[in-house]
């Protein structure tokens, strides 16, 4: 196990180098430059040249790249052009809010998705299965920004139950977390439904039933554990998608996380913040994927990590 984890971590270093290099190229390939954006279209060419030099962007790209990689190794990404302070510090400050949002939405998605999936998968072909299947398709179809606005209009404006946007109290977390969780809930529910429906056709399920166990005991005691394997995998893989969704959700709800930070940074070509945030998010996704593999092997002893590695 340790050997596999170390091996995975070494592969992870390569992945992180790839992610860091890719984002370095992408932000510089995007048209527009930070100095002109910061100073505005009326800036004199010498002002733009001077600021470009101050930001270190007048150096040849290979020189910038080598210097950047050296900084990445030391987890230094330079100062944000907009915030005038270390970019990684800015990202770290916003990360707890995003983590809170992602954890809450993951919890909602897993609990709701598993419940719906078990209900539907336990009664394949029945009305409840059809309702859940149709509902999850609908949930996956709604654009996140639209669901967010609808939730604001219903729960904040019409019912006055929850705040419309911002942060600071647990109540502020509810709507953004639900919005972010909706498409993920549908994914978990559909996957669980399929997995449970398949498991329920296995011989050992018939054996359990023949022992006189109730349908609920069969479902929760025997089918659930095996059905969890693909769900755990999808949770690990879905972290990247959740991060993408968080960008939209944070903007709709003015949630002070990494998503809003990255949107502003991209719009203003704040390279340092984009690089720092992408690097950190890539690391988190990688760790979640590794964790998912480890849990996967614990849930199903037949699966050996060596083969997965």
């Amino acid at each position, binding site marked *: 196990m340790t050997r596999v984890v170390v091996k995975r971590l070494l592969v992870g270093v390569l992945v992180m180098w790839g992610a860091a290099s890719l984002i370095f190229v992408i932000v510089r390939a*995007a*048209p*527009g*430059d930070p100095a*002109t*954006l*910061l*100073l*505005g*279209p*009326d*800036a*004199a060419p010498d*002002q733009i040249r*001077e*600021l470009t030099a101050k930001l270190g962007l007048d150096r040849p790209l290979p020189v910038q790249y080598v210097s950047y990689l050296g900084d990445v190794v030391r987890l230094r990404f330079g100062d944000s*052009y*907009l*915030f*005038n*302070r270390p970019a990684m510090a*800015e990202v770290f*400050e*916003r990360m707890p*809010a995003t983590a809170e949002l992602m954890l809450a939405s993951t919890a909602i998605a897993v609990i709701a998705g598993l419940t719906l999936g078990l209900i539907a998968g336990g009664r394949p072909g029945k009305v409840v299965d059809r309702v859940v299947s149709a509902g999850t398709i609908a949930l996956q179809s709604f654009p996140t920004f639209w669901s*967010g*606005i609808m939730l*604001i*209009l219903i729960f*904040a*404006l019409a019912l*006055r*139950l*929850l*705040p*419309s*946007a*911002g942060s*600071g*109290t*647990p*109540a*502020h977390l*509810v709507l953004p977390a639900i919005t972010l969780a909706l498409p993920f809930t549908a994914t978990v529910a559909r996957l669980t439904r399929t997995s449970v429906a398949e498991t329920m056709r296995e011989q050992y399920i018939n054996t359990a039933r023949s022992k006189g166990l109730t349908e609920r005991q069969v479902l929760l005691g025997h089918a659930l554990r095996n059905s969890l394997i693909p769900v755990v995998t999808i949770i690990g893989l879905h972290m990247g998608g959740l991060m993408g969704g968080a960008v939209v959700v944070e*903007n*709709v*709800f*003015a949630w*002070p*996380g990494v998503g*809003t*930070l990255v949107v*502003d940074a991209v*719009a*203003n*070509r704040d390279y340092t913040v984009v690089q720092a945030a992408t690097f950190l998010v890539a690391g988190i996704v990688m760790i979640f994927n590794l964790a998912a593999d480890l849990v996967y092997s614990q849930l199903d002893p037949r699966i050996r990590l060596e083969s997965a590695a």
Partner: protein
Amino acid sequence: MTRSRLLGLVLATALALTGCGATSGGSDSGKSEITVAGTYPIQNLDPASPAGGGNTGTNLVAQEIFSRLVRPKQDGSVEGDLATDWKSNSTATEWTFNLRSGTKFSHGSALTANDVAASFKRLLDLQSTNAKNFSGYTMTAPSDTQVVLKAPKPDASIPHKLVIFYVVPAKVTGEDPDFFKSPVGSGPFKLQKFDPSGTVDLVPNPNYYGGAPKLDKVTFKTMPELAARMTALRTGEADLIWGIPDDQLPQLQSESNLSVETVQSTAVFTMWFNSGEPALRDAKVRRALWQAVDFPTIIKQLYPQTGTLADSPISPVTLGYVKQEPVKYDPAAAKAALTAAGFDFSKKLRLQFANAEFRPFNQAVVSDLQKIGVQVDPLEKEQAVFTKDLLAMNWDVNFQQLSNPTYDAANTLGRLYTCEAKRNGYCNPSLDKLLAAAVATPDEAERTRLYGEAGKIIWDDAVGMFPMAVKYAYAFNKRLTGFTPDPNGLPDFAKVQVSGS
């Protein structure tokens, strides 16, 4: 656990979660505290830095924390802030500002002319976008209550230019991020909390020369999403919002606890033609294109409350505004003029703009031009791409909502339409002479006359189409009294009160 107990637990948790949050802040707090929900991010509190200088969010907060020599009034004129009076020499190259005595920073130390001069030097040293207005200028402090600003050439627009110059203690030099985490100023408010992720809390400055504001606290929250902003206002989570599209205004106007007011802004919809392009070099062609668009109808349809047909390249609240002869919609005459001028109807014009908010307006313009056979490709671009292409003249028609933070035509006509500016391919030495004369004339009436003549050339030569003068709509809770909508989207809260508190 039984099903009913489980349900009870879920409901109790939901109530616990929602109980305090739904109406936190805003009008239900009962104190003299208000929450302002704006669209602009406030990432930096240093208005002299390259990042903060041109940033509206930074300026919104900076004007509350820091004083200026002068500040703008709603009608576009300037009034003294730290300065009690000012005068120039006969050539407008030397300006003397007398400062009010006894002014203090929020931490209690005296503000002197030395702080003003040092702040000016810092502004120039940091080379922000605002510093370009003062290239080669120097400021000295002959006494504790007087500063003298010397310009390298005659500049009668100096008082207006100085509305974006803020005073910090003299000890602050260069970029000083630590100082601006908890800045000290002499404005009506002082900083209580700054979270660059979207919240700024201000509390009254007891040492403010005009007396501490009556509000206990002003909280600025960044809310980019319009639906969230409007909902926050309607539920009382926010007390003031602005930047509201016309189609949403009736909804807010129907709310009994809200006031909606519009104010003439400094902004004008400006659609430059690239006069450097062979197809658009002829003023007759440009004017015919303008004539082909039914702007009165477009404005009536899209901006019934916040738009009026423009009658000048600059706003009525700008020094130098003079009304011009309207361009009448006449598509038949437009087509005839284009044909007579040999316009190539097979050429597709590139119309660039930068914000989805302006998409319907630009699409309507494209549609009208198509009716007379002019093909236009509307290109909606991301801001960074738009700016790059704008400067590279990579467009045929360029749409911008041009506002003017200084309220002076020198900042728009004088800056954007000279041959040297190279902003729209138009070059007219006669116009250059007029603009140079206008900025060098200390007499305001004469300056206005000269800018009027310059505006007429720009208007008649159709350097661009100038379709709409923009009003800004503000919606606020009726419990706010003393609030004045600002023509530049930078409302001041020094005189705002909460009724009943």
